[in-house]
């Protein structure tokens, strides 16, 4: 795969916003892949954590935003737990979700939730789901 890199993307405001909002420093990642190995949902992600971080290091925010990864991250922190450089991909995915949610773009419509789920699921699942997926 060929991609074109642009200095203004790598040093752009989106990247700065992601770093500020997540509290992470993208350059700390040296791409060992432990996060993707430990991540329980990487099998289903368009971009597993380490690849998503690589795209962000190269300033390619849109590629990562288009991927399903941030909506699949469960925030279990196994990535952080296994990272030799203490980078949390979960924090980065949260920052990306927040960028989207703060613009009012919901990932899940509340009215589409099945009644059976709302009746039987523990409240914490609903509250947590709203926090992560609904603006």
């Amino acid at each position: 795969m060929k991609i074109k890199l642009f200095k203004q993307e790598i040093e752009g405001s989106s990247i700065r916003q992601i770093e500020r909002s997540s509290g992470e420093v993208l350059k700390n990642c040296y791409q060992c892949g432990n996060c993707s190995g430990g991540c329980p949902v990487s099998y289903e992600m368009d971009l597993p954590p380490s690849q998503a971080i690589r795209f962000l290091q190269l300033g390619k925010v849109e590629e990562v935003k288009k991927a399903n990864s941030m909506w699949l991250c469960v925030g279990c922190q196994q990535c952080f737990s296994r990272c030799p450089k203490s980078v949390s991909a979960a924090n980065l995915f949260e920052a990306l979700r927040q960028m989207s949610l703060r613009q009012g773009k919901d990932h899940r419509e509340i009215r589409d939730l099945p009644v059976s789920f709302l009746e039987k699921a523990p409240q914490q699942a609903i509250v947590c789901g709203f926090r992560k997926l609904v603006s």
Partner: protein
Amino acid sequence: MKIPYYPGCTLNTVAKGFDVSARESARALGFEMEELGQWNCCGASFPLSPDNLMGLTAPAKVLASAARMGDAVTTLCSVCYNVLKRTNKALRDDGEKRSVVTGFIEEEYDGSTEVIHFLEVLRDRVGFDRVRESVKRPLGGIRAAAYYGCMLLRPAGEVGIDRHEGPTIMEDLLSVLGCEPVDFPNKIECCGAHLAMTRTDVVERLSGNVLESAVDCGAEVVVTSCPLCQYNLEKSQAKVAERRAGYRHVPVVYFTQLLGIALGQSDEMAGLGENRWDVRPLLEAKGV
């Protein structure tokens, strides 16, 4: 001994057995869990963006309420524990955040209340030896898989009630109660959590892996400390049974339910009837 207690939203509704069995167990062990006079939901997720201060306000209110009752607060739900403990650290270590959050909730709080999980109360304040002495009905060597999931353990250094890769606190308790703990590879893996709302296929795979891993290692019951793990594990069993011939459903219980039974509680009090897969036939078979 009295210890302030924060039940959280789910223990008042779908996980009542978790709450009642713990309170009664505490009484049998000689202390009281004193419910906070006023409390609200903790938000069920610690905001992973450090710039999201709104997410800290709900747990900060709980902590401020706890501080009026004592120097520590205990919880049962793994998620509540994680959220309160992390919020507490954020408020204690970061003066600027503290002043914004406490200003918003209009309550004073400095982060000095200690957040301890009920398992830690049993280990560090009561002592597992004393629990052993109080056991009236040893659990007959039931092979029990202690499932930790994420929130009791990670991120290490902030919330860990035990080593984050090889925890044993729950197994240590189960041994004391007369169970035979079963070690299994997926005991610290995620159950799928809130993806129950959007991606049941992912939850079924993750929870299914936990169940199969436990059963393959000989587990007769899976033990948890989180109502969401309990829900996901119970709900995913049908899928596991579909993909695996001869699979027998395993009960998924809260550790306090086994504790309660071992301390002599009735099945009703321990809420055994609330579990989707009944643990009572197993208890009978083991002569408990």
